[in-house]
């Protein structure tokens, strides 16, 4: 019996996937099978709407190595839709599964629904310049990024949970894994962000932004140039097409020009404020409020005004 499959190695994201899955279930009337990499996750997903949760057990814990096992589960059941959490590992696995299924795949879908027997998704094109509707024939694979959907409420019934032993990818030897990210930095969870660009002349000058962020109770974020070229801030704080996507209540952009590749990562913020000394900078078109001025002058004044 064909079915809707979900998978994410990220527990929170795995739960969020059930929300679109439940919507698709209404249209397709097919059961939802949630694939998980821990028994805890499987049990929880079974209470949130999965008709069946499968714990893929393997001696080898490398997430990317589960691609073949996931494909095996999906093809055995003749799956029709596979929703995979759009982490970097998830995308790697999803494309593998799509290839083995000879299926189409839509990456980072923002919305999903069934239309005329096909999966209709919307996604971003041209580094954020455009949005497109993409129609994928079934079976279809889709990746969904974290926080695109909220996790569903507890279901009225609990699904079954089973364990399947699988083997991983033997040809790749995984060596040292170094966690990154400073403790407590969760750019995505911040409700307010002060984002810095290369209008700042040197690393020490970021103190002005830090002071402002403190006054606002905001976190610090940045552009790709500040993180990748200048290395003034870690890459986890970089907002943009190949960095983080955030949706805070306030996105305060200081000394950054507002190019499309950056704005695509923050343009769903509730309020965008820009401070830049170039009146013609694109950021002003994307801002709700802004100040044309020298950040070296404006920031201390703003920090002081907020402190009162």
């Amino acid at each position, binding site marked *: 019996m064909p079915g809707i499959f979900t998978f994410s190695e990220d527990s929170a994201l795995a739960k969020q996937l059930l929300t679109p899955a439940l919507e698709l279930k209404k249209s397709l009337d097919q059961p939802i099978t949630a694939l998980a990499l821990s028994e805890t996750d499987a049990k929880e997903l079974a209470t949130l709407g999965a008709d069946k949760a499968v714990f893929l057990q393997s001696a080898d814990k490398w997430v990317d190595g589960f691609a073949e096992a996931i494909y095996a589960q999906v093809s055995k059941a003749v799956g029709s839709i596979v929703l995979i959490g759009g982490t970097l590992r998830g995308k790697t696995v999803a494309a593998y599964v799509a290839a083995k299924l000879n299926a189409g795949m839509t990456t980072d879908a923002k919305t999903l629904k069934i239309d005329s027997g096909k999966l209709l998704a919307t996604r971003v094109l041209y580094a954020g310049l455009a949005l497109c509707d993409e129609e994928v024939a079934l079976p*279809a694979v889709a990746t969904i990024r974290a926080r695109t959907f909220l996790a569903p409420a507890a279901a009225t019934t609990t699904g079954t949970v089973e364990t399947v032993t699988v083997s991983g990818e033997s040809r790749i030897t995984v060596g040292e894994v170094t966690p990154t990210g400073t403790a407590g930095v969760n750019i995505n969870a911040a409700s307010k962000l002060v984002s810095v660009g290369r209008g700042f002349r040197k690393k020490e000058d970021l103190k002005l932004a830090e002071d402002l962020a403190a006054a606002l109770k905001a976190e610090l974020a940045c552009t790709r140039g500040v993180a990748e070229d200048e290395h003034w801030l870690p890459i986890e704080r970089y907002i943009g097409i190949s960095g983080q996507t955030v949706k805070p209540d306030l996105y305060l952009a200081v000394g950054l020009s507002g190019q499309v590749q950056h704005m695509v990562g923050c343009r769903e913020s509730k309020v965008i404020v820009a401070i830049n000394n170039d009146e013609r900078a694109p950021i002003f078109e994307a801002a709700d409020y802004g100040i*044309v001025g020298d950040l070296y002058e404006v920031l201390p004044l703003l920090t002081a005004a907020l402190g009162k």
Partner: protein
Amino acid sequence: MPKCLVCYKWTLDEQDIKIRPEDLSLDSSRAKGKISDFDRNAIEEAALLVEKNGGAVDALTYGTATVKQSLKDCLSRGPEKVYWISDASAENADANVTANVLAAAIRKLGQYDLILCGEGSSDQFNQQTTSRIAALLGLPCVTFASKLSVEGDTVKATRKLEDCQEDVVVKGSVVISVLSEINKPRIPSMKQVLGASKKPNEEIKIADLGLKPEDLQPKAVRKSVKGFVMQRKNVIYKETNAADNVAKLKVSLASEGLI
């Protein structure tokens, strides 16, 4: 040094694409072509590996008729030879079709041990091609590499993922995608540009790849494309006195319930 192949896509430069205000449709009539940004990193990485370890790198591309404009650009960046497939099917090809074509071409060309791609194309950014090619060829796959090195027939890579850096080692053939931070693509020197015409290019006809017609039919079809236009309040304070601007902004922030 393993025999290295780098795959690249000739895309439209999204900076030249305009949004028509009447209906938000896209106008790409003035858009120039470019080698997709992340593919440039892949080409550069391959060139750097060859500079360090010897050997040579070939390039492979699949596109419409415009793909021929990419050949000298590619060859000016390090590869010794470029294989190209020009076919109308590329116009609407999805990742499934692209991977089918590239995998078939790689199979036809023979043993490449190291196949490099960018992490995604700058136009669609599907981020699927690498994994798909690996799956179709039955090869291991390493995605999102921020560092690469070669020792004999062993490839070592560092992957940069959201929450960690992961070191992996692969012996034998492998398909790898690279991140933009892995290197800075060269600005081709004058001699590198002019030297490109002396390097060979070879067309591979799609009919010779042994594909079925359905392999060239996209499974993911773009139905409509609309420019994304920001609708924001655009209240910009431009007084000569910075303190005045700050005072006004403070009032605005308060009115939005942010402070």
